[in-house]
């Protein structure tokens, strides 16, 4: 027996087995899930993710590209995406200047016209360079956040980073009410030119306001405040548009 243990090969096999066992070479997880089962599930998810993403992207791109036909040339390069880092019912312009729509928003809109209203609104922000105009806010916000964070770190060790991020978000407020209303006005034009039902804009923002009342207040929770004032302005604009024969040749 001692002779066998003295064999280098045997010792190597035994030690390797123990090492392998201890270091996670096992094929079954603590949850009793095998690597094969995990791989199968990942494959299943990947396959479904591909279908899900393609379906969403196709829907958004179809509506978005229809809107792009009638926007100013400098905005025609804009792309649409459904995969970002933000969750919730939302749409926004990302760092590349492209429009991102969350899957939750795609569930929220009832038809393509409502989706067009959301996309047209974001396009309008980009065309009007609102993201650039709010960069100043963001820089100030970041700086203020860092200051508050470092102060907080002094009195609450470890909390500085989190508090800095929170403070930054508070200070860098979203688009102003004026920006939102300007974007609304432009979005209606884009929608009408692309042949979408402009009433959908009022429908979707009104429902947003009804179902998520928190957004009716300008706060850090409301990236797109849907105040009563904004809804009233939309109503007025739509009524005016319907009274005109053509946007290109207003009365």
């Amino acid at each position, binding site marked *: 027996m001692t002779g066998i243990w003295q064999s280098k090969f045997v010792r190597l096999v035994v030690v390797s087995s123990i090492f392998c066992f201890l270091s996670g070479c096992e094929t079954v*997880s603590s*949850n*009793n*899930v095998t690597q094969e*089962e*995990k791989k*199968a*599930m*990942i494959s*299943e*998810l990947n396959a*479904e*993710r591909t279908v*899900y*993403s393609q379906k969403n992207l196709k829907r958004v791109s179809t509506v978005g590209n229809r809107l792009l036909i009638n926007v100013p040339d400098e905005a025609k390069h804009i792309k649409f995406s459904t*995969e*970002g*880092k*933000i*969750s*919730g*019912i*939302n749409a926004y312009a990302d760092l590349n200047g492209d429009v991102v729509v969350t*899957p*939750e928003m795609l*569930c*929220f809109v009832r038809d393509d016209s409502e989706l067009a209203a959301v996309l047209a609104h974001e396009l309008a922000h980009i065309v009007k360079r609102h993201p650039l105009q709010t960069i100043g806010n963001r820089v100030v916000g970041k700086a203020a956040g860092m200051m508050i964070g470092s*102060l*907080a770190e002094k*009195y*609450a*060790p*470890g*909390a500085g*980073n*989190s*508090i800095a991020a*929170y403070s930054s978000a508070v200070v860098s407020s979203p688009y102003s009410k004026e920006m939102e209303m300007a974007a609304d006005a432009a979005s209606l034009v884009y929608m009408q030119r692309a042949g979408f039902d402009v009433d959908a804009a009022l429908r979707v923002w*009104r429902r947003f*306001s*009804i*179902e*998520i*009342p*928190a*957004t*009716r*207040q300008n*706060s850090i*929770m409301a990236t797109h405040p849907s*105040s*009563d*004032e904004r*809804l009233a302005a939309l109503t007025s604009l739509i009524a005016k548009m319907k009274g005109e024969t053509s946007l290109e040749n207003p009365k």
Partner: protein
Amino acid sequence: MRIRNELTVFFMSGLLLTGCASLPTNAVPLSDVDREALDFSLNNNVRLTNIGYRLVGSLPDQGQSHCTRNLPFAYGGLDPKWEAVYPLSRRHGVMVVDLLPDFSFLNLDLKRGDEILRFQGVPINSIAMLVTLLDNSCDVDWATMQFRRGEKIWDMRVPLISMPLPFFFVVTGKSAEATAELSGKNVIMVSSPLLHFVNGEDELAFVLAHEIAHSMMGHQRQLVSDEDANMANAVASGIAAGLLHKTPLSVPAFKAGVYSEKDEIAADGQAIHTMLASGYGPSSGFSFLKRVKIGIPSKARGSSYQGIHPISIDRLVILKKNLGNLGVVGTSSKSMIEAPSAAPSSASLWQRKFNADTMLGSVLNSGANPEKEGEITEMGLAEGVEGPQEDFKKGDKLVFPNTVERIFWHIRIQQKGFGSMEKFNAEWYDPSGNLYSKREFFFNFASTRAQSPLVLNLTQKESNVGRWRVRVTRGANVIDESYFFIKGEAPTKSVSSKSAVKSTSSRELKKIPESVPAVAVNQSGKSDFQNIPLGPVPGVEDNYRILKIKRVGVARSVETKDRGYQPNPIGMSDVFPVSVQRIGWFAEFTYGGQLKNAFSKNFEVEWFSPDGKLYRSESFSVENHAWYTWTSVWLDPALGSLAIGKWRVRVWKKEQLVDDRVFEITSDSSKSGA
């Protein structure tokens, strides 16, 4: 208009909590958006509560220590600022929000905005008071409540729901995140965006069942990192306080953040069992989690669904395996059949909807029904639908014995439903997939209910066994497409002479009063009860007093009146013409005579034909808060002259004889009044 963003609608649907709509400041008139926000909030609280009650109602009984009662309607206390919409006289009154769809059969004369004034004579000033009174009502099944609607004040007896555990379900509109979480021990909050993200009621049921499971299992949310812990510490202690007093923050972190993977897996496991038991399709939980995993960015932490309920690959694998063990994913036909057997015996009360995975029940999502969604209040299959008002369904279920002669597809709509004399088509497909029967039927303008029967050929009982499909259409629209099962197991007692012998078993020797003669067949082939006078068999009346039966008899049908509290027997008599197709036995209980734990099929009825043989025997249940019960027998036209003579019906509650009476079927029209 200035808008305050705060919790303002204190709502309680079975119990209350938070509200969803923002409110205008004082003295500012409500806008249309405000009103719609309130309606959205209230309607969805009712929707969640209905699903939640069904889930909680299927949980195992937790014993008397957890006894709790609730009302069959949603109720809440609104902020006084909503008085412009619901003019409650008190600034902190409690109002009826809505009847729960599952309890619509009670026909309670209540509507949104009715104020609850008293409960068992005690004035109600707050929701807390009402909840306390309900918690102390374990020993009663009914409560006398007082309501006010405008100038009208009235008292009404309301049946109380027995709930194994108290849970409260609330929609919140405070976040654009599609999420759900357990607040405290028993308040389940669902964000309004999640209502759009879920694909149908089954997925929403999974979300609620999962949170219920977290609560039942005592799971605690854990902080995910030191950074989060410090943030939590800072917030909990108050940053400002720390800065002002220059005191290092050192309070322990409050419990926030995420559940552990182990807890999530355990909650999923419990949730799918709860769903199965309450009639929801458990595999929808798997599809929901996969869609969240795919659709909502995993980096989105905080209050997002994934932020609170991390979805790991292990979790999905285990859920899928558990579903397979339950026989609801990729199963064989055997497990499809077995799936509903796990359902509780309360199936007769809860309107059951299964999705396609369970392979029984409706395969149409509610959203897929183009027929005026929201106006259909009830739809399903039953062994019988009784009375002109058809308020009582007998044996509402999805699995039938192969001794059943008729199975009804039935529908009930609200008052402004389909137009008068609307034409429907019902197609019944047998287990082989062949069209077994096709019938047209009509919606009578005077009724809110319609039904169509499948008449089965009982000479081919064995070939009837299997999964059937019924498809109901109105024009080009499919109203319903449901699967149900006819099983082949032997009935409790078969329709044979052997059973007649059994009727003289030791059971009746023990319990039947000595003055009541037993059933026996005499030498002439006629039963010896032919000589007993029509009506109750002498001596049995004593049982009525013991069982608190107010009225009992046989009739052609039974409808209800006075808001469903009183049965109104149609054609009640001891003599029926030979043309009669169906005869029913009914009993009305006096107050306090309702039968507890009545979901179990603890009643049995025996119908003896004139030859003394047991013609039909079956079990039937009395609903928990029933004020009357009703069972019937269909007479086979093939009986012909054999049906003429004296019949006897005998009803048991377990071992206790409830009623025993003789009636007659006659060809003499003058005698029967036909």
